[in-house]
């Protein structure tokens, strides 16, 4: 299981980096979602080899349970990631409405001029 997990984490990080470096807002957003999932998976992998172990639930008989702490950690990290991604969605949406573009390249184009204030 460890090799598969390692390759999966690597793929997720690679895909996330590729997407974040694109210009389109939607791709950047998906890149960050993948990035947080890759990190969560990495932490999960720290609970060790899961082969032949049971889930860490009180009262479930059977083999030795896996280390539950990384699962508690990623639960926290998922909740935090949920909040941050929700904020990112709204930030990108508002940037799109305010600046009339969905491309980061265009957004930070130095040739873009600040529009004149209406009252000035």
């Amino acid at each position, binding site marked *: 299981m460890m090799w598969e997990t390692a390759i999966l984490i690597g793929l997720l990080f690679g895909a996330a980096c590729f997407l974040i470096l694109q210009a389109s807002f939607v791709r950047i957003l998906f890149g960050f979602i993948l990035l*947080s999932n*890759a990190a969560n998976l990495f*932490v999960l992998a*720290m609970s060790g080899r899961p082969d032949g172990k049971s889930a860490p639930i009180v009262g479930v008989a059977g083999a030795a349970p896996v280390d539950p702490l990384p699962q508690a950690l990623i639960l926290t990290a998922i909740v*935090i990631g949920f909040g*941050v991604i929700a904020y990112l969605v709204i*930030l990108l949406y508002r940037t799109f409405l305010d600046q009339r573009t969905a491309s980061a390249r265009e*957004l930070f184009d130095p040739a873009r001029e600040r529009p004149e204030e209406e009252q000035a």
Partner: protein
Amino acid sequence: MNPATLMILPVALPLVTAVVALMGRRPAAWRRWFTGGSALLQVVVAFALASTAWHGGPQVLAIGGWAAPYGIVLVGDLLAGIMLVLGAVTALASLLYGFAELPVGDEHPLRLPLVQFLVTGINLAFCTADLFNLFVAFEVMLISSYALLTLEADDWDIKQAFPYMALNLVGSTLFLVAAGLAYGLFGSLNFAAIAERSTALAGTPQLTVLALLLFTVFGMKAGLFPLFYWLPNSYPILPSPVAALYAGMLTKVGVYVLLRIFGQVLPPDLPLIHTLMMWLAAATMIFGVLGAVSRNFIRGILSFHILSQIGYMVLAIGLFTPYAIAAAIFYIIHHIIVKSTLFMVGGVVVVLNRSDDLTKTGRLWAVAPVLGVVFLLQALSLAGVPPLSGFWGKYMIVVEGLRQREWVLVGCALLAGVLTMFSMLKIWNGPFWHPEAAGGVHLADARWKPMTAVAGGMTLLSLGIGFGAEFFLRVAHEAARQVLDRGAYVTLLLGGGN
């Protein structure tokens, strides 16, 4: 009550304040009284904790009664106490400054709660002795800071929030990875447990990877050289009271954690990291101050200066002797007060001249000399002119650098000092010395007087640090001693504790 039980208050007080202020539907006078009162109480609590740590040594609070290394513990040593005091004082000053700047009705209903959430995260980062809890503290701080950044930004400026958020998101992800790695290596996330178990791993590649990851993450949050570009464009879009708080505290949380992690938690023999730290610090100083020279609006110049000053503190951490660590702590004390005051002065200039573009401001020395004196004292202190607070920190860093024969680094530090003086003169020549003001001088706008009064109060504090340097140096040396005493830390947390 037991002093250790009180240690939760720096975290709990701002959180309760934030929630109560959030429940108030509209900005009203009671919310200001309530938040201001709470901020005052936080200052008192922080002083109480610092003095407990100063007289009685570090305090430990095991949350929920679960002892380390299984439970989460908060540790209040002298360094944490100093940072809590500085944070509480800066937060109080920026609140009062904000109250002076805006009438009650014009305040955004979410500003007060969000600032208190931000303070919660900052204080938790200072107190915690657990790597994952530190991650949570950083996230509380960062999410509030994202929200504050965009809360009052206009349609055009909103895009500056995007690099800030993107870079900090990447940083948070790396932090999570580092926490996972630390758990995999040590089987615990408690600082003392990591400190105890990492000595056996000294010199192994695993430890180097972990140290490099942590250095990248906290260096990014502190604004170190290659990864600083989230800072200088995003701070100027903040309203000036919030900008004063950000400038004072946010990057310093990164420096504090660098100090804590590399001074106390990871083993001291990491020559690669220390060398990297010193050279990146030198690059940060030079590039930061060059950026400041290139800007032509006040808050832009000041934002770049934050970076260049961060360079000094990180250089001191990289030199890594008890003397240098004490210098870094003293520098943090000086810098937080001075930097937030300078941002406050920038805000007053905006009120008086209706602009912070250097070419459109002027005449302020003639009409408001008090403001000029405040600015001059703080600018000279930032540049490191002798009796003022900035001198002592720089002096100690340079002395330690010479002692270790790091001639190039010392040269960079001195050059950055000269360039700091130059860019401060740029500001002086604009709003204060320039004979004409394109936007006129709005002296009738009575807000500037209470705003200047708050900035003046902070200036008095900074003068006190400069002239009472002996006392503050004693405090800094004691704090550095507590940080570097790893054996006592491990015994305190793991050997029964409280």
